[in-house]
């Protein structure tokens, strides 16, 4: 066991700390009113009376220039052009989180599409899409799920036909997060109807302004329109908008699913939320007694803290396995989405319980604590328990690929 990153990282940590100090309390010029909630999700807190105001996109550029994000992405595509260094990434994440300085943008473009293009894209595609995506100027949505293809994603039916050098797309997607704000969609479509289920799928990039696309927002349980239905009626895009070859879409999509699952429950954010909860339990009272002085609440808090500490330590072990080849933590990576989303949901739920009736308030009551973010995040994480491959599907994956248990026998005729 050696928890030192090595002296060569001390200077780097100091640089990051100095940066965080300089930008402590930075806030975003209001572009959309979703910022507050997304801060609660990431566990950062943005000072509303802050001196420094930037747009999200300006912030992205500052972070890239410093190499705090897009570190290993080549300069020619708008990245920092450095080496992958996961210890540095870890230091950045930890220091930003400690100082509560907001990190870079996430989202499906940056987290999923960029790694996909780096692995599978043509030179033209990389040149065209990566830079604006990294700079927050091109927002992407992920068009995978369909009404009849959720967990069983490979049964998707939206089809694309190659006609006169163009893909002509017809069908419907659903649960498409942020489609209404997006410039582009990366989409799974069926291009080879004759081929088997998995071999008939291709990965296509679609500008959202293309005629024939209709977006209908769907309000979710948080009462925000977090996702949408997207309809395609003879939507036509150029042949070169395909990523990889025809029929390779399933492999393309799977190669980056891990990125999404890993990013769904960041342990640093969970730790920050735990600290927010602890502070709140020290401040709020019932009959003059601090919430933290009530033994049953305190015991639940300590239980959640135990789980948070375990997952923090676990993320260090995963980090270690990436820099020390031969350290085997196969199962360790597979459990992250399941364990992380369930824990976060439990933590936010505990905050609601200790607040009692106050915990049920929402949106704009004068008695709201932490802007009502506990209720919002409690519900939001139920969404993440379902999205990104449901937690039941995660258990299938853990038992089959992690523990080597047999697959479900196929049912020939569905009833």
């Amino acid at each position, binding site marked *: *066991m*050696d*928890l*030192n*990153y*090595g002296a060569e990282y001390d200077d780097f940590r100091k640089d990051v700390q100095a940066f965080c100090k300089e930008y402590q309390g930075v806030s975003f010029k209001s572009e959309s009113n979703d910022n507050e909630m997304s801060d609660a999700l990431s566990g950062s807190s943005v000072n509303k009376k802050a001196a420094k105001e930037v747009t999200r996109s300006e912030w992205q550029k500052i972070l890239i220039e410093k190499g705090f994000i897009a570190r290993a992405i080549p300069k020619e595509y708008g990245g920092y052009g450095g080496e992958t260094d996961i*210890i540095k990434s870890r230091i950045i994440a930890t220091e930003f989180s400690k100082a509560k300085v907001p990190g870079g943008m996430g989202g499906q473009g940056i987290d999923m599409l960029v790694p996909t293009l780096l692995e599978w894209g043509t030179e033209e595609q990389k040149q065209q899409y990566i830079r604006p995506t990294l700079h927050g100027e091109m927002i992407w949505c992920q068009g995978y799920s369909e009404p009849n293809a959720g967990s069983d994603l490979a049964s998707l039916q939206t089809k694309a036909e190659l006609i006169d050098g163009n893909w002509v797309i017809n069908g419907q997607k659903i649960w498409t997060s942020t489609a209404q704000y997006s410039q582009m969609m990366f989409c799974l479509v069926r291009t080879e109807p004759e081929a088997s289920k998995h071999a008939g799928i291709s990965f296509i990039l679609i500008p959202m302004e293309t005629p024939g696309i209709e977006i209908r927002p769907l309000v979710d349980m948080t009462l925000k329109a977090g996702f949408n239905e997207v309809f395609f009626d003879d939507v036509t895009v150029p042949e070169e908008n395909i990523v990889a070859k025809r029929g390779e879409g399933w492999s393309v999509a799977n190669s980056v699913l891990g990125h999404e699952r890993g990013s769904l429950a960041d342990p640093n954010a969970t730790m920050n939320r735990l600290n927010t909860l*602890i502070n709140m339990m*020290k401040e709020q009272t019932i009959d003059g007694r*601090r919430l*933290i*002085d009530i*033994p049953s609440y*305190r*015991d639940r*808090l*300590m*239980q959640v*803290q*135990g*789980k948070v*500490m*375990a*997952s923090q*330590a*676990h993320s*260090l*072990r995963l*980090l*270690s*396995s990436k*820099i*020390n080849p031969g*350290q085997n933590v196969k*199962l*360790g990576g*597979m*459990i992250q989405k*399941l*364990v992380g989303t369930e824990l976060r949901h439990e933590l936010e739920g505990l905050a609601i319980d200790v607040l009692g009736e106050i915990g049920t308030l929402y949106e704009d009551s004068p008695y709201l604590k932490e802007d009502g973010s506990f209720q919002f995040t409690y519900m939001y994480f139920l969404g993440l328990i379902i999205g990104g491959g449901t937690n*039941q599907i*995660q*258990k*299938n994956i*853990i*038992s*089959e690929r*992690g*523990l*080597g*248990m*047999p*697959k*479900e*026998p196929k049912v020939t005729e569905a009833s």
Partner: protein
Amino acid sequence: MFFGLSEEQEQFHDYVKKFLTDNVTVDEIRKIASGEDVALQQEIYGGLINLGINALLVPEEHGGLGADLLSAVAVAQGLGAGVGPIPFAGAYVMAPIALNLAGSEAQKKKYLSQIVSNETKFGVGLSEYVAAREDAGIDLSGDKANGKALFVIDGDEADYFLLANKGGVLFLVDAKDQGVEVTKLTSVDKTRSYLELTLKNVIAEVLPESEKNPEIAKKVLDAGRIIFAADSLGASESMIEKAVSYAKERKQFNRVIGSFQAVKHMCAEMASDLEPCYAMLWQAAHSFDHSPEEARLQACQAKSHISEVAKMVSKKATEVHGGMGFTDLLGLHYWFKRIGLNRQLLGGPELIREEAAEIQGFNQ
């Protein structure tokens, strides 16, 4: 940076686990548990002593290996995995740590080298220090001890007992002292011994540093808790392995039961709840030696969290085996009971979580 057991620690762990799998079948555990085969138990004990588990935590200057707590954790995981029917947490972890931290130079010289040669064996009773039940409790005045110590561990063949009063003063009593009355307590876990001591005007040999510094007793307690957490983690790991392999073989409705989702999901839940416990445990053990400011909280949380996960695993793994899981025939219950005992020793999860809160200044 490397987070995990070193190659050497890994080997230590694998050796203990394999030694027990190869030499201690369930039939043999049963014979040991019923007291039928004392010779066999001695043989196993001897085998593990040959490996040096007794010398692990004794500093090199006293002839030991001078290893850190993480190495003892690696051993304890292996012992839990194979329900090793031998003394460890008290005799070879808490006792040497207490002697080393609180003993006078003369005491260290005498006793630590005797632990290495295994001439002298220590039973350990800190229950009165952690949470004295009614009828129990120890009075220490001058060099005389009176009272009753319950739930003394590793004491079957002990030459000395390491005890503490409520104030955390650590002391030794000689098992041969006329005022020491030893009664065996029967627990569900018959792979380890459990004693009651009645002390009447017994000579107490105080470990002097523990009088000056009450943190030492806490440190000894932390070590014990981490080791019991490690034992439960090892036992849980074995129970999951057994459940998964049984599920791959047992057939019902013309299918192996491992293809039923209800069964797969129980296995996935056990595995995914246990997995982060490794890192939590190792971090706590590492902090014990290298980051004292974080060590107490981590030790408390590791003991209570791992006890909870282990309890869940012991239940679900039994269920996966169906009726067979409930039988003595399969002997899965030895692991179940091992986890059950570890959970309560040196404080159950609720008590320890209160302590964790106190360490952070939460309960005023």
